[in-house]
C-alpha cells in the first residue's frame, strides 16, 4: 500500500538508461525509482533532456532499461501492450483512418465485436467533444482536435494506465489551457491512473495529484509534491500559486544545471 492507502499501480526500481550513439554514451536516467498510485494523476516535471520522456518510453515498452525493472500491477514490463495507453507529443494518428477508425483500431485488435467497438468509440468521441467529426480524416482537424482523438484512442481499449508524453506541448497557449481543462474533466469521469510528462510547471500544478520533480541529466527524483486542491483548479488561486512557487524553486537549480550541461555538449 502506498501513501493515502491507495494501491501502487506502477513501480519502477533503480531504472538506468544509457543511450549509445557511436562512441558517445549518454546516461539519460540513473537509478530512478518511482511509485505511481492507482487512480491518481501523476505528473513528472523536469528540465529538458532530464530523461522524463525516456522514462515514459520505458514504461510503454518502446525502449528497454539498461538496468532496473518496471512493474505494472506487479507484472514486469518487457514490451508494449494494451494494458498501457500512450498519447504522443506529436499527434500520431493514422492519416488513412477516420476519427472513428483511429479510435476503433485498438478495439478491433483486441477482438471487440464491430458493433460494440463502434458504440464504445462513439461514446469516447462524445466525451472528448468531437461529436460530428467521427467520419473526418485527421488532416482536416486542428492540432487540439487531433490530440483529443489521441486521448480517446488511448482510452478506447481501457488500459490500466494512461501515459502522456507532453501531449499539449505542440499546441498554442490558448488551446493548451482548454485542453488542460478538458483533460481534467475527462480524468474526473474515468479516474484512470495517469502518468503525464511535461516541462510546464503551470500545467503540472493544474493537473496533478502528485508532482514528481526531476533533476537534470542523469534524471533522478529531486522532490515529490502532493497537490490537494479541488478541481477544476484556478491558475490564479493563492494555494495554486504557492504550490507553483514551491515546484519552481525545486526546478530552478536543475534548469540552471541543465543549461550548463547543454553548453558543455
Amino acid at each position, binding site marked *: 500500500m502506498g501513501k493515502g492507502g491507495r494501491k501502487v499501480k506502477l513501480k519502477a526500481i533503480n531504472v538506468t538508461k544509457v543511450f549509445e550513439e557511436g562512441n558517445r554514451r549518454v546516461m539519460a536516467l540513473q537509478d530512478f525509482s518511482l511509485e505511481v498510485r492507482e487512480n491518481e494523476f501523476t505528473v513528472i516535471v523536469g528540465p529538458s533532456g532530464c530523461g522524463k520522456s525516456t522514462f515514459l518510453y520505458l514504461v*510503454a515498452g518502446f525502449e528497454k532499461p539498461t538496468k532496473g525493472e518496471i512493474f505494472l500491477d506487479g507484472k514486469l514490463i518487457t514490451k508494449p501492450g*494494451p494494458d498501457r*495507453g500512450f498519447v*504522443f507529443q506529436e499527434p*500520431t494518428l*493514422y492519416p*488513412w483512418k477516420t476519427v472513428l477508425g483511429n479510435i476503433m*483500431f485498438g478495439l478491433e485488435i483486441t477482438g471487440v465485436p464491430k458493433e460494440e467497438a463502434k458504440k464504445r468509440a462513439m461514446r469516447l468521441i462524445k466525451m472528448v467533444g468531437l461529436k460530428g467529426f467521427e467520419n473526418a480524416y485527421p*488532416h482536416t482537424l486542428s492540432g487540439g482536435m487531433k490530440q483529443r482523438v489521441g486521448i480517446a484512442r488511448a482510452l478506447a481499449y481501457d488500459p490500466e494506465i494512461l501515459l502522456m508524453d507532453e501531449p499539449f506541448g505542440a499546441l498554442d497557449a490558448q488551446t493548451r489551457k482548454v485542453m488542460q481543462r478538458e483533460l481534467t474533466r475527462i480524468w474526473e469521469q474515468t479516474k484512470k491512473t495517469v502518468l503525464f510528462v511535461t516541462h510546464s510547471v503551470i500545467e503540472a500544478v493544474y493537473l496533478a495529484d502528485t508532482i514528481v520533480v526531476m533533476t537534470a541529466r542523469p534524471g533522478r527524483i529531486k522532490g515529490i509534491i502532493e497537490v490537494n486542491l479541488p478541481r477544476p483548479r484556478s491558475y490564479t488561486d493563492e494555494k495554486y500559486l504557492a504550490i507553483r512557487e514551491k515546484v519552481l524553486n525545486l526546478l530552478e537549480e536543475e534548469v540552471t544545471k541543465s543549461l550548463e550541461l547543454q553548453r558543455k555538449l
Partner: protein
Amino acid sequence: MNLNPKVLRWLRFLSPLTVCLAVWEVLTFFNILNPRLVSSPSYIMLRMYDLTVLNPTLLVYLYRSLYRLALGYGLGALLGISFGILMGMNRYVHWIASPILSLLISIPTIAWVPLFLYLVGIGDETVILAIFLGCFFAVVYNTMNGIRSIKKELIWASKTMGADSETIFFQVMFPGALVSIITGLRLAVGYSWRALVGAEMLASGISGGIGRMIYAARSLNDVNTMFTGLVIIALGGLLIDHLILGLLEKITIEKWGMVRRRE
C-alpha cells in the same frame, strides 16, 4: 468570370497545346516547314483516321504494345512492391541488396535489350523483360524508401494496442508507405513506356507494336506515320498516368491528406 475549377484546369492544360498546334499547322501550311520532312497536325489526324477506321493497323499495333506493357508492368509492379517491402523491413536483405540495386539502377533499361535479344531471342519476351526492368527498379526503390521512412511512433502506437505483425503490416506499414509506392508506380509508367518503344525498335523483325510501326515507317520515309506514332506514345503515357494512377491517388493518399492536391 466564374468558371468551374475543373473546366479551368482543362483550359489551362489545353490552351498552350492548342497554340502550339495552331502555329505548327500554319508553318507547314505555308511550306515554311517542309511537309516532306515534318508532318502537320491535320496530316497526323488524317493518318490516324487511315490507320484506324480504314485499316486498323494502328489498333492492332497498339494492342500488341499494350499487351506487352500490361505484362511487363504488372509483373514489375508486383515483384517491385514485394521486394521493396522486404528490403524495407529486413535490414539484412537491405544490407545485401542495396549496393547491387544502386549499381543496376544506373543502367538505362534500353542498354539491356541487345543482351535480352541474345538470351531469349526476338519476341514478346524480350520487350516484356525490358519493360519489367524499367518498372521494377523504380517501384522497388520507392517502396523500400516508403517502408523505411514510416514514423516509428505510428508503429509503436499500434504495438501499444497489442497489434500483431500481420496487423502492423497491413494496417500501418503498407498504407504508410503508399505515398512512396504510388510515386514509384507513376515513375514506372514513364520508364516502362520508354522501355517498350525502345525495345520494339531494337528488336527488328518483331511483330507489331508502336515502336515497330515508327521504325518501319522510317524505311518508307513515311513522315506522317512516324509522327502519328509519336502522338500515340505521348497520349498513351499521359492517359495511363492520369486515368489509372491519378484515380488510385485520388481515392487513397489524396483523400487522406498525405499529399497535396495537384493543381
